């Protein structure tokens, strides 16, 4: 066990982040662990940040880089909204993030998922991974924990879900990733955005499903040891 933990390593968000569209809006979800090497610097961080009233972004990778990019884009979008006289579209927000990510690719290390609702296109999700590509997707996953979710989404994703189905899918997915990824953990936060507005939800550990070794053993051969006559094959 490496006791020489580098407590001065840059804060990185191991992370699992997810964005999913449903019939009428989007649901964004994330875990809450911020790590400095092996040390958990913040076990309850909020990785889903507001850009405008109707557009939010999930941040992963370097905490500093993702915060700065979000701050710049929030500032540009604010000015854009004033000039335009109406709320900015999700596409514009995603494009501004992409320009910063791409043009500074040598210096930045952050993967972002932009999600929101506007009156022209409805709910939209845009994934902006490390190099600065911009890709519009029906759902997007990111962060170190997402590796464990590709197969899960291939099977569980479907078009035209309801709001509750989508939120349950996101919570289940983040919780599965937290179970397997050491760099993801803490609580599950979700943000639902639609024509009516924005709703934030919070799922602490006791609200999440149990997986694998966390479950009570059923029909386990270990029961033999505690039974009166430990005869194998006699149960």
């Amino acid at each position: 066990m490496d006791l020489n933990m580098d407590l001065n390593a840059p804060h990185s968000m191991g992370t699992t982040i997810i964005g999913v569209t449903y019939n009428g809006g989007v649901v964004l979800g994330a875990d809450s662990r911020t790590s400095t090497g092996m040390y958990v610097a913040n076990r309850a961080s909020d990785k889903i940040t507001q850009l405008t009233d109707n557009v939010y972004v999930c941040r992963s990778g370097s905490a500093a880089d993702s915060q700065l990019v979000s701050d710049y884009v929030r500032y540009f979008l604010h000015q854009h909204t004033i000039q335009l006289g109406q709320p900015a579209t999700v596409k514009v927000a995603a494009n501004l993030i992409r320009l910063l990510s791409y043009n500074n690719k040598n210096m930045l290390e952050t993967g972002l998922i932009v999600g929101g609702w506007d009156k022209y296109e409805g709910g939209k999700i845009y994934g902006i991974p490390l190099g600065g590509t911009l890709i519009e997707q029906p759902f997007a996953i990111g962060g170190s924990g997402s590796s464990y979710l590709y197969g899960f989404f291939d099977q569980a994703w479907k078009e035209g879900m309801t709001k509750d189905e989508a939120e349950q899918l996101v919570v289940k997915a983040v919780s599965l990733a937290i179970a397997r990824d050491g760099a993801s953990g803490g609580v599950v936060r979700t943000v639902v955005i639609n024509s009516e507005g924005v709703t934030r939800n919070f799922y602490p550990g006791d609200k999440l499903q149990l997986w694998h070794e966390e479950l009570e053993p059923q029909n386990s051969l270990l029961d033999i040891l505690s039974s009166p006559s430990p005869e194998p094959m006699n149960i």
Partner: protein
Amino acid sequence: MSSIGTGYDLSVTTFSPDGRVFQIEYAAKAVDNSGTVIGIKCKDGIVMGVEKLIASKMMLPGSNRRIHSVHRHSGMAVAGLAADGRQIVARAKSEATNYQSVYGEPIPVKELAERVASYVHLCTLYWWLRPFGCGIILGGYDRDGPQLYMVEPSGISYRYFGAAIGKGKQAAKTEIEKLKLSEMTCREGVIEVAKIIYNVHDEAKDKAFELEMSWVCDESKQQHQKVPDDLLEEAKAAARTALEEMDAD
């Protein structure tokens, strides 16, 4: 309503005692001396038409374009000093492509009109620049539907259902007001615009003219383009017939 602004009209940075900037008013006169330009907003798009007065019989038909595309979805028709108009079109094109690069979507027509108006206004603020001697009719089709704007040499820009500038603007405006634009398609609008331009053309004062028209509508897939040749010929024929009927009265 012409008045002499003796002494107060030498610079665009001088107000007259009754609060007017004469240089800007003189710039507007340059627009009034040019061929008529009109634009109308129909229920499915915009139609713009220009009365191109031909200076010389040796000019090639179709040359000296007065209507320019600014972006895929918008175009502008210019009246007044042509060289000034070229500058404004170049600036508008540059604003449109810049907006697209930064924000990732085509520039909303309202935003484009504001930027063009700002630029025209800029040239009325400094003594070492002269105002643009042109009026602009800007038509475009964005996600909020078709929109028509007019920009004057003073830098004012308003949104219109129908607009006219140039020599025959008064007569043209009267004709446009008679039309039921909200029920008209662009196809019908093209014919009406041609009729109006032929109507306001003064045969006595100016001999020859060429009609140039463009549209941006559902039929053109929300792209700004020249009106197709067959429709243009149909419009010209209808306009000539209407004129003959009027003369026959």
